[in-house]
């Protein structure tokens, strides 16, 4: 397997160092990494889930909108960022793999390396007080 590019390597290192939940994907949306705070929110260790395609992670955590309806993947901030290569933000509910519901805000941004190479995306999660 080819090594990841330096921008992705350093993004993972930053995520690994933070105490806020962070997701990291490649350009296709394949989940490359999520950090320990994200593991707590999602209910599963990254070592257990491993790398996941977008079709899997976008449904596995059961995102639900404010009215209680399941959210289609294209409505998720991280999927919007992957599609349009632009930052995106949203607030919704998720049900973790342990069945716990949480209201979260997500800010996603594209990783664009020198010179204008789209390399992937990062999503930062905030668990809202409800």
């Amino acid at each position: 397997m080819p090594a990841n590019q330096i921008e992705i390597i350093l993004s993972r290192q930053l995520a690994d160092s933070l105490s806020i939940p962070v997701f990291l994907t490649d350009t296709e949306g394949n989940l490359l990494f999520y950090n320990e705070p994200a593991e707590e929110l999602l209910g599963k260790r990254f070592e257990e889930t491993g790398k996941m395609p977008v079709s899997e992670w976008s449904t596995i955590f059961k995102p639900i909108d404010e009215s209680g309806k399941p959210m289609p993947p294209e409505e998720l901030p991280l999927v919007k960022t992957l599609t349009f290569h632009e930052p995106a933000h949203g607030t919704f509910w998720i049900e973790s793999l342990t069945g716990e519901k949480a209201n979260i805000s997500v800010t996603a941004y594209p990783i664009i390396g020198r010179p204008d190479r789209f390399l992937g995306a990062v999503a930062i999660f905030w668990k809202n007080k409800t």
Partner: protein
Amino acid sequence: MIVTIWGSRGSLPSPSPENSLYGGNTACVQVSQGDTLLVLDAGSGIRRLGDDFPPGITKVDILLTHLHLDHIMGLGFFMPLYLPDMTVNIWGPTSTKESLDTRLKRYLSPPLFPIRLQDLPCQPHVFEINHSEFEIGPFKIKSAYVCHPGPTLGYRIENGRSVVTYLPDHEPALGSSNFPNEPDWTSGYDLAQGADLLLHDAQFAKEEYLPRVGWGHSSVNDALKFAKLAEVKKMLLFHHDPSHSDAKLRTLLKGETERQRFPFEVGIAAEGDVLELS
């Protein structure tokens, strides 16, 4: 392919009697085959290459890893730049905003230097590269950004039989939580994998590295770990700290090789070294 070291010092030229064995000139390495001559970085060592320039060569390609001063300070003192009939191509990293040409002109213009880049008799051609693959003569060259502050490239040069990898300023341990155990999460791995010769940053002793994490350089210990991960055949420690004497460099390497055996040949890059690869 013949690899000649013209400068292996890092950061600052450091001529002194204590450094006479490994040399005090900053980064410059010549890679030659037939009439093709590549120059890796234009540190102060490039001046001697210019003085000893092989007769009959009419084209030279200078591949810059980055624009920190120790890697470009010799450029204006490279004799072939003053030959109108010499073709000089300068390759270097793309930045986010300013062109390579503009950034080079910051140095090659008054008040830092009396002669402007555009006034050099050879009229050099400047090419920007990033994650690139290209050919010069018999060489296939791959460049990629590596872990070092500012846009910095590493190079992998192949001639169909041998591979030399040049990572003079590189801190792979910074970008890895589990260094050196994950090749796909290690900066520079693809460039170095299986190389016949690796020239790699080894600026610091282990205890010197700890207060300098993030400065973009490696300890000797980390450099050796990286070489082992990449399964290179031979490695030369490069970018020696200006304060490290010949004796200190030998002590650092001896300390590592006494602690463990490495499955590759390891040495200290010295000015004047000539290595012949098939």
